[in-house]
């Protein structure tokens, strides 16, 4: 508990600038979506958000390195990161929940199953299948076929699972003070992350070009893209975080005992990995 040395920064301009930048970015995004213009505003906001985050984290790193933080501060960061990841878990839970609901209830009901089957009156011809290749209304073109889980998705699963392992090796090396080994395994992890992103990009291309899996392809396309899309964004963010960590390892920022920044990145990466396993099982395999 508190030993009287808890560091409370006097003032900081990043929070207020950050919220301003986020506001600009949101207004820009809204304008692009509603009015079809405002890309520049969005970009200014985005650059602002990224700049503020970079400068804010820079302050934290500098404070940490100048020894301003005590063990209690370390625990604050741990709780903070832990609960943040929990919030992310719940974010994905909403999308998984939507997927399960649609598969177990909504689609069968549309085909007349159970007490709520009255909705079958809307589209009498409709038969329930998952993956839903032919949505109820003929105005919506479903996917022509779906991905076999045993090709690219399996490759990506192996990549991401092994990246968790390589990251753990890097972390263990850091704990033993073997900085170079840590650096190499971390670099390997980043490479695996980048490969995953590329493969996911290829798959998206395939989806649009050859499979008819699009955002507009009914509920299959919608759940497919919202789950894999947000996961993909998280892999990109996670990779960026790991790249920052690589630079910090190379600059001797971490000691075997004191490296929560590194550890937090590991937590985040493992979380992204676990989400992918869920995705692989429920979006691709079953």
């Amino acid at each position, binding site marked *: 508990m508190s030993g009287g040395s808890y560091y409370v920064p006097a003032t900081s301009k990043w929070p207020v600038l950050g919220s301003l930048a986020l*506001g600009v970015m949101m207004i820009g995004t809204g304008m692009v979506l*509603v009015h079809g213009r405002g890309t520049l505003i969005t970009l200014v906001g985005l650059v602002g958000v990224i700049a503020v985050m970079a400068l804010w984290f820079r302050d934290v790193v500098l404070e940490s390195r100048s020894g301003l933080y005590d063990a209690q501060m370390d625990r604050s960061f741990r709780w903070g990161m832990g609960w943040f990841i929990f919030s992310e878990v*719940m974010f994905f839970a909403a999308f998984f929940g939507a997927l399960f609901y*649609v598969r177990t209830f909504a689609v069968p009901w549309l085909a007349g199953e159970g007490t709520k089957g009255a909705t079958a009156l809307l589209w009498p011809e409709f038969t329930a299948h998952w993956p839903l290749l032919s949505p109820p209304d003929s105005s919506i073109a479903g996917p022509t076929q779906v991905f076999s889980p045993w090709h690219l998705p399996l490759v990506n699963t192996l990549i991401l699972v092994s990246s968790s392992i390589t990251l753990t090796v890097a972390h263990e090396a850091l704990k033993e003070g073997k900085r170079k080994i840590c650096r190499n395994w971390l670099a390997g992890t980043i490479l695996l992350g980048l490969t995953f992103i590329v493969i996911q990009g290829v798959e998206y291309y395939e989806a649009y070009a050859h499979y008819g899996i699009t955002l507009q392809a009914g509920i299959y396309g919608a759940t497919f893209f919202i789950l894999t899309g947000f996961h993909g964004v998280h892999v990109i963010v996670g990779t960026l975080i790991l790249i920052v960590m690589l630079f910090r390892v190379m600059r001797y920022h971490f000691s075997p005992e004191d490296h929560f920044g590194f550890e937090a990145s590991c937590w985040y990466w493992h979380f992204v990995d676990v989400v992918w396993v869920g995705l692989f099982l429920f979006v691709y395999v079953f």
Partner: protein
Amino acid sequence: MAPKVPPQPTLEQSTTAAEAGHGHAHEAPPKGIMRWLLTTNHKEIGTMYLIFSLIMFFIGGIFALVVRLELFQPGLQFVNPEFFNQMTTMHGLIMVFAAVMPAFTGLANWMIPLQIGAPDMALPRLNNFSFWLLPVAFGLLLSTLFMPGGGPNFGWTFYAPLSTTYAPPSTTFFILSLHIAGISSILGAINIIATILNMRAPGMRMMDMPLFVWTWLITSFLLIAVMPVLAGVITMMLMDINFGTSFFDASGGGDPVLFQHLFWFFGHPEVYIMILPAFGIVSAIIPAFARKRLFGYASMVYATAAIAVLSFLVWGHHMFVVGMPLAGQLFFMYATMLIAVPTGVKVFNWVTTLFRGSISFEPPMLFALAFVVLFTIGGFSGLMLAIAPADFQYHDTYFVVAHFHYVLVPGAIFSIMAAVYFWLPKWTGHYPNVRLSQWHFWLSVISVNLTFFPMHFSGLAGMPRRIPDYALQFADFNLVSSIGAFMFGFSQLLFVAVIVMCVRGGKKAPAAAWGEYADDLEWSVPSPAPLHTFETPPTFQRPAH
């Protein structure tokens, strides 16, 4: 088992930096507006939250008065139905997300570090970020009223497809502003949890924490668990609107009912987010003015936790008429009724604390007592609504409006007012003006009942909610409601007057402003609390019984 001895903190070390001659001197804070923009101090940020919430309370209140003005008489007099819909929607959104939630967060900011003996919040910069997101979010939300096609008009619950296929173009901005507000809530909650778990004074165990701290700990957990789900569901709306997905569109295999499940999975815990901190406040105030220890401290903690757990399992009670398998209806009906048990434990504990107390009726106590009575009325009407077959009748009538206003206005909002009166001496060093506070209380309590009690009757008689016109037989009830609403609205100017006067001057308050039974750690620091407190952690000691 022997009853748990309630905590009686004592201080071993002095509290302010000046007194303690503590190491690092503070630079003078920046002047003027910059001080508020850049601050990392939990008291200043708490004050900003509270002022923001008060402003939003009036803005949301004006929207409500527009609604009540139109409903004063049957027929359409003042506004057109499109604008009426925007007013009901904006009223609900602003009151929930911009008035009640930030008010509780502001109280948390001010009081939790003081109550647990911490120098500040665990992550002070993040704290400032959480606050400054709010003006951005709600500035954007309010601006939608001026956009082509008007602002959100689909009710604060924004059911799809009203909020997707049939929504005004500004809905995209509404979604984005809600995202910003959600980020603010999540980050604020993470900060509060980290503070409570990590920053307690040495010696203070979890079961020594004041109940306001406990209830906020559990509220933060609810926030972190359900705000991301809200973010998820509005993201799906955004996709349906702008990218042609069919999450809530049956023609593509989706389901509008999916929206309701996701929304209420967030929505029901959300109503507890707005009431659990109120329970904590009332549990602090009643013992102080009944001059007795709180009855059943431990059971209060367990009841709060039980309510939080159950709140994840009852969302279906908002959807009885949507069409749901019978097993689902039965499950949600019984699970909802189960919540009445821990809630009842709380009411029982408050009443028992009052029993044989030597009660006095200072302003905070007046509001706390009104809370106990009127919140309980709201709880009972909730139980009526929980009965699935009965709810087929009540749903979407003014009876529901009566229910949730009883739990939210004389519930959540009265508790916030009680808290303000209770802690104003600590914030300003002065007692609030008693006469004016009493006027404020009596006018509020009378007008609140004038406004909302008749809604039970018009609702039971079948008056639908969210409709600008109504059948003639509801005219008298609505007339009374509208008069009450205007009375309530204008009475709140007294609240502002009391606060302003209290900041400016008034009877001086000592450190322990409310006597020996208000003895949590915050009453050990001087009144007004200096900008920095507990920089050297106090040693918390349980009484040696």
